[in-house]
């Protein structure tokens, strides 16, 4: 897209209830001398609206969790993942957890057998629960699944409506502040990637293509800055969201992540998740996860612009 003065305009979707990315770029000092103009689009309810907006050429780029791309692909929304925000040490760290309330005597996932476990269908929380159960040789049939929006999960857990809750990020930190404890995290179970996705048409566009390339570089730098200055970032984010600084900091320090290229591992992780959804009936058809990725910008990260294949 082009602006009033004919210059290039990159429309970036900002998912979640806080305009965090502009603040992050500014704090990291990477928002200067842009060769294009950025137009921010806020999607407070995350997922669906962003996908819908991309489908009708209202937004070019955005960072989402990995799950929405699976459903975007199923709906032919024309979004491709061009970079991956991954946890640096996924075997040790994670943003996801399955929590039990204070006073629960569950000590392992195996103890969840027959328990009421809350997660939101069609989100990473569901995937997490399935993988955790799988690791103990259990399935969804062995527990009593409770489908709840992520925003309502903590309330339900605190009021004893459910025995366990799969949740993530600040929700985790908030519940923890209230005494809940993590039975298991996502580390070693799920990748927990976020994906930088772009409209397929924008990727090939002679003006937008280079802009996206430039933006990915800046984003990587900014995320790196964030990991290096957690207190500073926590203060900024707390100011934007109104959350207590401790909660933000706890959440931020949970797992260090960085922006990187599209990799075979990322595709494989996505394929695994997609297959799980197929298995539980959320998806009707098997997907080829590779179709959700486009490695054209891998060069930004010094990686080959083609996937290695199997």
């Amino acid at each position: 897209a082009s602006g009033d003065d004919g210059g290039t305009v990159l429309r970036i979707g900002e998912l979640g209830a806080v305009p965090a990315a502009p603040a992050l770029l500014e704090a990291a000092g990477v928002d200067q001398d842009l060769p294009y103009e950025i137009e921010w689009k806020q999607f407070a309810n995350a997922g669906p609206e962003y996908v819908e907006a991309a489908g009708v050429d209202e937004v070019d780029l955005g960072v989402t969790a990995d799950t929405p791309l699976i459903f975007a692909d199923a709906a032919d929304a024309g979004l491709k993942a061009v970079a991956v925000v991954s946890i640096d040490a996924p075997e040790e760290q994670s943003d996801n957890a399955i929590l039990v309330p204070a006073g629960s005597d569950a000590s392992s996932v195996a103890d969840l057998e027959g328990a009421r476990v809350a997660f939101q269908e069609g989100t990473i929380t569901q995937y997490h629960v399935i993988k955790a159960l799988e690791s103990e040789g259990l399935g969804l049939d062995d527990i009593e699944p409770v489908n709840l929006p992520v925003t309502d999960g903590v309330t339900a857990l605190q009021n004893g409506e459910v025995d366990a809750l799969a949740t993530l990020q600040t929700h985790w930190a908030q519940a923890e502040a209230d005494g809940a404890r993590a039975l298991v995290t996502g580390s070693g179970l799920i990748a927990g990637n976020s994906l930088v996705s772009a409209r397929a048409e924008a990727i090939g566009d002679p003006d937008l293509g280079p802009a996206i390339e430039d933006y990915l570089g800046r984003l990587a730098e900014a995320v790196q800055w964030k990991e290096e200055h957690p207190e500073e970032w926590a203060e900024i984010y707390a100011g934007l969201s109104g959350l207590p600084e401790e909660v933000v900091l706890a959440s931020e320090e949970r797992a260090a992540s960085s922006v990187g290229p599209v990799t075979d591992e990322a595709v494989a992780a996505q394929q695994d998740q997609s297959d799980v959804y197929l298995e539980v009936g959320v998806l009707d058809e098997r997907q080829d996860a590779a179709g959700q990725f486009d490695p054209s910008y891998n060069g930004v990260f010094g990686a080959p612009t083609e996937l290695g294949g199997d």
Partner: protein
Amino acid sequence: MSGTTAAPPSAPAQAGPAETERGGRLAGALPLGRLRILIGPVLLLALWQAGSATGLIPERTLAAPSTVLATGADLIATGRLQEHLLVSLGRAMTGLAIGVALGTALALTAGLFRLGEDVIDGPMQILRAVPGLALVPLAIVWFGIGEEVKVFLVVFGTTFPVYVNMHAAIRGVDPRYAELARTVGLNRLQLIRRVVLPGALPGFFVGLRFATAISWLVLVVSEQINATSGIGFLMTQARSFAQTDVIVVGLVVYGLLGLASDLLVRFIERKVLSWRRTFEAQ
């Protein structure tokens, strides 16, 4: 002048000014009879198909009627749609029954007692303005995540339209009838039964129409809470999985429910308000 219907052949019909009016009325009334009510919906369907065919309504966003038919047939064949509808029907009707009873009782209290008015009306106007969505956490605390919370949200949504319409309708009852009621010595209960309720009935029916629609609409929110079935669940699921054809089947189901409940309320209205002469379209 009015026209002729049984005039002898020697006195031919005279076209007077009033004749024109009558002709107009006849032309408007078309020989379709009761099928007239379908004109609108059929037109809507035609517009939709046209929009889909011309691309004004992209298939990706709103599937074409033909696609929807196929998906719908599929959902029905597998029994999913019926199952969801049945579950939702239970929730909607339970909540509606409670909400209507509550709204009516509150409206009567506020309408008949000054003290009731003072205590009830303000809070009702306040609560009515509160987004039900924002009440979900509180509802979970009070009612848990079982059926109660889903029914509660329906009650919360349906009480107000009944209350507001009924309350306004009670205010609109001709006060001369209240005078009459006093002179014939009706007690409070008889006043309600003989004067207030029948007089406010047309307003009540408007409220009931809203409430009926809302009882279904609320499910889109309440069936996100620990639900694995129901039309609201189906819609939410379809949206987060970007299954536009299912969404549209849901929309159509909603539309049909709206039409059906409207026809039902109209039917009851016609029976109950048979004394009423209404202002007629021409």
